[in-house]
């Protein structure tokens, strides 16, 4: 094959290689540059912060969905009576103060005065009561509280609310202020609440530093500064404290494709891009206009067993699988460089009051093929393939499942990794058969052990686990729920976590960091499990 005739091949090859070299070139090029600190507070005001968001909500009513995308934008618009600070402690926010009486069963909440809603009206007790009642029946957090709840009434005057519980309920304030799964009780005007009823809000109105100016599903949400906002006069800490709306506008754009989010930050069109792969760290660190923002160890990954089906209705099989797993390898495969993950047996993060670092000894990350084989034989495993069910959108789970497959098969398991689009995966998961393991990530920075995602009690959520062990754990859990003495409660939490490690209804893997991309000119965004843009400002680019 000589001369001209093979030139087609060459033309193709050359063009292909040309393309790649352009790609590689565009990816390289480093230009170190440090950003100058902002001069004065005044200079921080103005401008539009454009944010590339990964998931698109259908509406902006946090009460009507547990999806994080439904709440994240809402945090700018709505505020809670209490907000969590950096240590996940519920701090009064729209509330001025809170008195606990009646041995912990009555909460007397005094509201801040002069707080305006976006519709211009002042927030008073009836708004809080209406919001609370809607929250109770519509919100997942409200559902948790409902069994313990008795009544909510106006106290002395329009700035006081009294909440009575039927029995002691330790997590109450933590759930009210929770930053997980949109559990927080947001305060909205009574008229808005009544207009919406049990349907999603048409017209999101809150007290927050930004108000909604436009929302087109699947495209963007536009927020503008609420000029009559009345901030809390305390230093800012995570969601609590003072919120300053520096930017005139915040525009959230919904972009599911990671590469496009990053490209937008690099090109200067976006100021921030959420949730990019940790592998992109080097690219961002090397870009003169962008900067990586790591939120350390904020997520934890789990393998949830289907306790209704063999082999994992047998504790031996669960233990066998546990001894198959080398979690370092899984962490490395899913999160890359070790600066993005950590192995930690506790179900709560270090900063939390409920941190239990000394549980899981001899269980957590103890790969031992021999032991696994032996346990597997004892369990009477019949050799039917174990189905690890994944949603294709969740790359961490898909990759973790593939590593686990290799590890488990070495010990004699047969593993079938099944990846489906999210609705199909969720559909299969909601049934008692058809799957054995569901890998899932949860936010580790929880306000309360009750909110811990992987555990919801006997036969709850997806574990389908119902035996003597599970009921024993229910009992421990119930004790923990009503124990309001923090140190006694921590002991129960430890006991409960130990119990989990003994019975293994799920296996905890690693904690991992989340990487976001920030444009260098955007300052003041905190590396927190929730990304917020109040207190953030854009540097003015000097005309040059």
């Amino acid at each position, binding site marked *: 094959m000589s001369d*001209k*005739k093979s*030139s*087609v*091949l*060459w*033309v*193709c090859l050359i*063009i*292909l290689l040309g*393309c790649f070299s*352009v*790609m590689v070139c*565009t*990816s390289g090029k480093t230009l170190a540059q440090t950003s100058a600190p902002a001069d004065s507070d005044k200079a921080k005001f103005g401008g539009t912060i454009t944010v590339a968001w990964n998931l*698109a909500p*259908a*509406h902006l009513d946090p009460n*009507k*969905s*547990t*999806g994080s995308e*439904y709440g994240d934008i809402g945090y700018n618009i709505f505020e809670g009576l209490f907000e969590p600070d950096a240590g996940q402690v519920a701090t009064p926010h729209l509330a001025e103060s809170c008195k606990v009486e009646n041995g912990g069963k009555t909460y007397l909440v005094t509201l801040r005065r002069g707080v305006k809603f976006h519709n211009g009206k002042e927030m008073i007790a009836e708004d809080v009561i209406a919001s609370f009642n809607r929250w109770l029946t*519509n919100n*997942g957090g409200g*559902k948790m509280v409902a069994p313990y709840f008795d009544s909510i009434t106006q106290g002395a005057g329009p700035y006081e609310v009294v909440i009575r519980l039927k029995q002691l309920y330790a997590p109450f304030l933590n759930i009210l202020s929770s930053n997980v*799964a*949109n559990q927080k009780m947001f305060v909205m005007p009574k008229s808005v609440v009544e207009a919406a009823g049990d349907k*999603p809000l*048409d017209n999101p109105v809150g007290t927050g530093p930004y108000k909604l100016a436009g929302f*087109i*599903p*699947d*495209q963007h949400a536009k927020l503008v500064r609420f000029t009559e906002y009345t901030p809390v006069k305390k230093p800012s800490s995570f969601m609590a404290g003072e919120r300053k709306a520096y930017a005139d506008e915040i525009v959230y*754009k*919904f*972009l*599911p*494709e990671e*590469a*496009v989010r990053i*490209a*937008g930050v*690099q*090109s*200067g*069109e976006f100021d921030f891009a959420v949730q990019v792969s940790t592998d992109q760290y080097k690219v961002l660190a090397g870009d003169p206009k962008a900067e990586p923002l790591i939120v350390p160890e904020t997520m934890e990954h789990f393998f949830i067993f289907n306790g209704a089906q063999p082999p994992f209705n047998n504790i031996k099989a669960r233990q066998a699988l546990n001894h198959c797993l080398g979690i370092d390898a899984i962490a490395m495969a899913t999160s890359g460089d070790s600066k993005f993950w950590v192995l930690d047996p506790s179900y709560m993060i270090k900063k939390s009051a409920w941190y239990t670092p000394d549980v899981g000894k001899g269980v957590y990350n103890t790969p031992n093929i021999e032991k696994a084989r032996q346990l597997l034989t004892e369990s009477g495993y019949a050799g039917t393939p174990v189905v690890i069910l994944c949603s294709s959108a969740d790359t961490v789970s898909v990759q973790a499942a593939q590593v686990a497959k290799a590890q488990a098969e070495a010990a004699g398991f047969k593993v079938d990794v099944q990846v*489906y*689009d*999210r*609705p*199909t*995966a*969720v*559909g*299969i998961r*909601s049934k008692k058969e058809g799957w054995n393991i569901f890998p899932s990530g949860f936010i580790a920075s929880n306000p309360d052990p009750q909110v811990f*995602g992987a555990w919801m009690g006997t036969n709850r*959520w997806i574990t389908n686990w119902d035996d003597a062990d599970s009921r024993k754990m229910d009992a421990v859990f119930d004790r923990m729920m009503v124990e309001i003495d923090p140190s006694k409660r921590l002991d129960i939490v430890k006991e409960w976590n130990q119990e989990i490690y003994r019975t293994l209804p799920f296996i905890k893997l690693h904690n991992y960091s989340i990487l976001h991309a920030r444009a260098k000119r955007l300052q003041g965004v905190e590396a927190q499990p929730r990304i917020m843009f109040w207190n953030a400002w854009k540097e003015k680019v000097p005309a040059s």
Partner: protein
Amino acid sequence: MFNFIIRRLLLLIPVLLVVAVIAFLSTHIMPGDPVIMILGDFAPPEKIAAMRLQLGLDKPLYVQFVIWAQHILCGDMGHSLFLNQPVTQAIIGRVEPTLLLALIGQSLGILIGVPLGILAAVKHRTWIDQGSIGISLIGISMPSFWLALLLIMVFSVRLHILPSSGYIPLAEAGFGTIKYLILPGVTLGFMQSAIIARMTRSSMLDILNQDYIRTARAKGLSEKVVVLRHALRNALIPVVTVIGFSMAVLLGGTWIVETLFNIPGTGALAITAIMRRDYPIIQGSMIFTAGIYVLVNLLVDISYAIINPRIKYG
């Protein structure tokens, strides 16, 4: 001809009805539940049940079908489960960017593809031919998301000439809208030109070897006249088929390009609807695409008659 068109348009009705029925059945056979998609992963079971009741998804399939069919026959395609919008409105609102994108992509494809194909056929077995085959093969074999990302890298990230994504409607931005459509348009146009160039070349070669072309050449007509007047017209039939078909595909929406560039078109709408099991939108999109196909096919058939007078429709 007029009656032919009217007749074909009337035929549209049964086609759309069949499509609608298949659309209904296939969406409901699809696994996955819109309710969980709406309420999120950790929604309690009683909330899920309540939502199913509210959306009428608890009823047996045949009952849902009857209700749905009644609405469809009244021209009501329903209300999106997610978008707080009637289906018709949701789709119509997405047509503008898709239409513009299709037009830009297709015109680029034709402007590049047809001349390239003719050139390749005329210069058969020379380096020009080989080069154009090479380019068009790259166009075919390169995944569109790949090309799209490459264009973004070069024109947005490196050169800062064009926006990497987004869309502003004509009514707001006027001519400025084009800015947002260049990169996605080029992505589509490159693929289209590859397809069109290959089809043109192939069909042109066929025609150029026909005897009447030899006769025309023998008559001493200039090569330009032979190629452009005698050959091209006849070579266009299969090309028009390809153009017509791909136009229908483009108008139905190209979800990869639309998703990548965050263009709110019909393709992106359909794909997000599938990914969320927004049944009414999926069904509406299918009916919409079917309508587009039938209309485009009709146009293709009409253009056959114009290009090739031997084909007559009565």
